[in-house]
């Protein structure tokens, strides 16, 4: 918005107040303020109302009862104080004021600033980094406590610790926890414990509640450095819940009170025992399950495989069954075959060759008789014909011709009938067959037919 806008706009009182409130509260969220207390008053509500003033100005201040817990002195008019608070506009009265969160006497205010500066420096240096924090052993057996041996802190710590866990050793390193030398003693204690041969697993740095002044040793740099340098994990438990010291920021673990430190240090013994028992049970359960799974698998396979005895019994039954069926089959088959045989036999009997032979024999006899008869007829007929033929043949027989003086000439030894003189050679042996006997002769001379055309006529 420009100045011009402001001039042109007409605000209601509430609007303007709201804008002023927003502007102021945003611009001064948390401020450190130094001044003198004046007009201090406490109404029945318990809240503190006063003004802070210097030579020229004053500002209204409210310190609510709920914030007064950290206050280490009773305010009164005229005290120089250092305050921290938020600027707030109270619209109902058109007033602005500081709502305080803490207030220190002026000397302590300077320390507070130093605290903030150291905190910032160590933060920038990385001393508070989570990555630097060493893990606390889950079951530390040997613990050192750096504290006042006469304070309530160590009593609280031990009481809670041994209520939770019995088997643990505690070494108390006595130190002053407030005063000029406290921070030096604490730093030395930390470094000595780190060099000791006690086998320490954790160091607890603790003291009970007190004013910020009382706790100041734990805000000193040498303590912070000693904690950071410790190879043994450090648990801090300083003051009450609301108190935060530099030591708390550097420590590997911060407990709000000494009792809380004991609780963070170790789990109750019973819890450990339960945990171990639970793991054991789960282990045993899994093994049982693995075994049961195998058994079931085995049984399954056994079922699938079948009992060999049952299988044998099955086979025996099947064998019996098949044998019986085979036997029955054979009987039926045999009966069938017997029937067939009987039929064939009857047929064969029907075809008895004796019967046939007998039948055929009578037929043969009949036929033979007829044949004989016919043969006799035929023979006698042929006989008669033969006689006639014989007579005729006799007439034509060469023997008859030979009777009449003719001769047959055969070559020797060929016995070929010689019909031509040229078929023989002079000197050749010939046989001449006569009507009665024969003569073996030798050819003297041959003459061709031409030389004898008369001969036939002559004879």
């Amino acid at each position, binding site marked *: 918005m420009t100045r011009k806008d402001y001039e042109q706009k007409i605000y209601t009182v509430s609007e303007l107040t709201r804008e002023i409130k927003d502007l102021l509260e945003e611009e001064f969220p948390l401020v450190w303020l130094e001044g003198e207390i004046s007009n201090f008053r406490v109404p029945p509500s318990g809240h503190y109302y006063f003004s802070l003033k210097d030579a020229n100005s004053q500002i209204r201040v409210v310190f609510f009862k709920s914030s007064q817990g950290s206050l280490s002195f009773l305010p009164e008019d005229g005290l120089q104080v250092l305050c921290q608070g938020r600027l707030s506009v109270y619209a109902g009265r058109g007033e602005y004021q500081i709502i305080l969160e803490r207030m220190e006497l002026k000397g302590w205010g300077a320390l507070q600033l130093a605290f903030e500066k150291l905190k910032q420096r160590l933060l920038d240096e990385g001393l508070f980094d989570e990555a630097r924090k060493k893990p606390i052993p889950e079951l530390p057996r040997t613990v050192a406590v750096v504290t006042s041996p006469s304070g309530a802190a160590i009593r609280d710590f031990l009481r809670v610790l*041994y209520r939770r866990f*019995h088997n643990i*050793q505690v070494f108390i390193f006595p130190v002053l926890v407030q005063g000029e030398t406290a921070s030096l003693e604490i730093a030395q204690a930390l470094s000595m414990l780190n060099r*000791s041969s006690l086998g320490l697993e954790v160091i607890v740095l603790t003291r009970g509640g007190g004013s910020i002044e009382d706790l100041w040793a734990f805000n000193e740099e040498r303590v912070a450095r000693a904690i950071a340098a410790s190879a043994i994990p450090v648990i801090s438990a300083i003051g009450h819940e609301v108190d935060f010291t530099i030591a708390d920021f550097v420590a590997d673990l911060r407990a709000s009170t000494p009792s809380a430190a004991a609780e963070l240090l170790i789990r109750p013994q019973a819890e450990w025992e339960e945990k171990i028992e639970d793991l054991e049970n789960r*282990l*045993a359960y*899994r*093994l049982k399950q693995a*075994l049961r799974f195998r058994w079931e698998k085995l049984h399954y396979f056994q079922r699938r495989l079948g009992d060999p005895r049952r299988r044998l019994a099955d086979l025996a039954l099947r064998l019996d069954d098949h044998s019986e069926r085979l036997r029955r089959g054979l009987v039926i088959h045999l009966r069938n075959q017997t029937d067939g045989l009987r039929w064939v036999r009857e047929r064969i009997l029907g075809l008895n060759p004796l019967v046939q032979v007998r039948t055929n024999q009578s037929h043969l006899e009949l036929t033979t008789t007829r044949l004989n008869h016919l043969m006799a007829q035929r023979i006698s007929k042929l006989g008669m014909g033969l006689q006639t033929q014989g007579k005729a043949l006799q007439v034509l027989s060469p023997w008859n011709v030979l009777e009449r003086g003719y001769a047959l000439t055969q070559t020797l030894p060929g016995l070929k009938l010689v019909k031509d003189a040229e078929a023989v050679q002079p000197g050749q042996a010939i046989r001449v067959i006569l009507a009665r006997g024969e003569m073996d002769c030798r050819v003297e001379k041959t003459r061709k037919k031409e030389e004898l055309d008369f001969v036939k006529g002559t004879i």
Partner: protein
Amino acid sequence: MSKERFEEAFKKLEAIVNKMEGGDLSLDESLKLFEEGMRLSKLCSQKLTEVQKKVELLIKSEDGSLKTQPFPLDEEEE
């Protein structure tokens, strides 16, 4: 007593239980893991009571070493 630290033994035991609960193990592996798990479990139980309760005050001696002396406890508080 075994040198094995409680924390390591306990972590191993947890890992073994997780592995067994993951399944897919041969029977042989299961048995081996079970045996190892039971051993670790016994070890952890032993470790819990391995150390006896003791509270001592450390005293700086002149040579800079630390000596111990028993620290009186308020027995009625326990």
